[in-house]
């Protein structure tokens, strides 16, 4: 079957869709901007809800695409509209004529330094969810002082549910990520006090509530309802966190050795750039606009353009994979129905 299918983004969505398309007999082309496949999941240590090593997921998905054409370190220079196809020009000089483009461009983590009051990039003891995942994997981060880790805090909703920060949406995966990371910190430092500062705990997924109960019951993670207002540093080089304990109706403060900001999920600017070449519409939440948010989340308003994964909004790994499979089937149906 000689039908070019261009997949933009080699994260888990792009990999899974490519794997399925190969199984259906097509030969998809993956274009990945970075030097590695797997996208964000390649940066994570282990995944909720079963603490699956993230590298296992990425390597399984990568094995399935060994037959695909994969271009890493490659960007989209421009996309030209032909009569009923697109000419996609890549930064490596290759140009592809195709009827079908699948966007699996994923998300971008909110830049936590924009929330200046939380001190990311200012105080050494303030890191992000991504930094902590990397520290779990590598153990290298000068900001994490394992010898003196008596109190750790997690700040939920950093750059999410925050109109001033330009993102009013809930990023969906950070509550459960905070609970997961809080447990992992307790496993490494059982004597440490671990606090989560939250507004709501959104434990929507399979077994997430069990995770939350376990964090409370088995690990004694202390949940404080209230958004952190500001962070400062004392002379000993520790950070002081201020919030309102809205359950007690009183201001609360605590001194910490490490503060982890749960940076939110926003649309990837690389995605917006490519989308504007076609052009594709963005939804009011800043992500790619699906043809229909209930019936056709993987479809765009243009024929031959499909979406899968976090490019249409925050998603978990299983949700992303399910969408990638569904997009592969949509593409297959698109090809077979146009052949008749």
């Amino acid at each position: 079957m000689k039908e070019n299918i261009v997949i933009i983004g080699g994260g888990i969505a792009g990999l899974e869709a490519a794997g399925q398309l190969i199984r259906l007999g097509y030969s998809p082309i993956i274009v990945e901007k970075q030097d590695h496949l797997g996208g964000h999941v390649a940066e994570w240590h282990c995944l909720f809800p079963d603490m699956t090593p993230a590298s296992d997921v990425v390597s399984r998905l990568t094995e399935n695409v060994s037959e695909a054409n994969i271009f890493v370190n490659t960007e989209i220079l421009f996309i030209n509209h032909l009569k009923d196809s697109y000419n996609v020009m890549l930064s490596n000089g290759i140009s592809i004529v195709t009827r079908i483009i699948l966007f699996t461009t994923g998300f971008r983590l909110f830049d936590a330094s924009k929330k200046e009051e939380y001190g990311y990039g200012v105080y050494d003891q303030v890191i992000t969810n991504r930094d902590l995942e990397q520290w779990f994997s590598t153990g290298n981060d000068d900001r994490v002082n394992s010898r003196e880790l008596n109190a750790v805090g997690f700040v939920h909703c950093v750059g999410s549910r925050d109109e001033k920060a330009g993102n009013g949406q809930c990023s969906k995966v950070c509550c459960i990520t905070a609970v997961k990371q809080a447990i992992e910190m307790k496993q490494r430092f059982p004597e440490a006090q671990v606090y989560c500062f939250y507004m709501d705990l959104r434990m929507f997924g399979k077994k997430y509530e069990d995770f939350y109960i376990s964090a409370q019951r088995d690990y004694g993670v202390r949940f404080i309802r209230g958004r952190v207002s500001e962070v400062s540093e004392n002379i000993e080089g520790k950070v002081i966190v201020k919030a309102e304990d809205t359950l007690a109706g009183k201001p609360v403060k605590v001194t910490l050795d490490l503060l982890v900001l749960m940076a939110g999920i926003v649309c990837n600017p690389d995605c917006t750039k490519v989308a504007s070449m076609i052009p594709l519409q963005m939804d009011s939440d800043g992500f790619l606009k699906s043809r229909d948010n209930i019936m056709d989340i993987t479809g765009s308003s243009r024929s031959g353009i499909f979406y899968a994964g976090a490019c249409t909004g925050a998603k978990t790994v299983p949700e992303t994979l399910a969408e990638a499979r569904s997009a592969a089937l949509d593409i297959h149906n698109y090809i077979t129905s146009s052949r008749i």
Partner: protein
Amino acid sequence: MMNFGFKIAPSATINLDNVDMEKFTLLHEMEPDVYKCMACGSCSATCPAGRFTGMSVRKVILDLQRGREKEAVRMLKGCMLCGKCSMVCPRGINTRHLILSVCRIYNEDKQ
């Protein structure tokens, strides 16, 4: 000390660094489920005494972890141990038993 004719109100801020968790740790040993409270308020809503005395299991559990033991123990005086709160707690905490344990641990020095 100089008398200015007025005093500064003590700070209402809860400083978690200074909260002594010794008794709460003891309570947790006797009542492991106390950690499971998710502050839903079902216990307080159903409590027949709460309306008149201000008793709230949710607040007791919170206050004990915020260094407000006196307030918690004072509140417990309004409980008549009817056990209604135990029946509604969605986290399955035996709140009535918990109340008794709190009394045992925190009442020793007659706060």
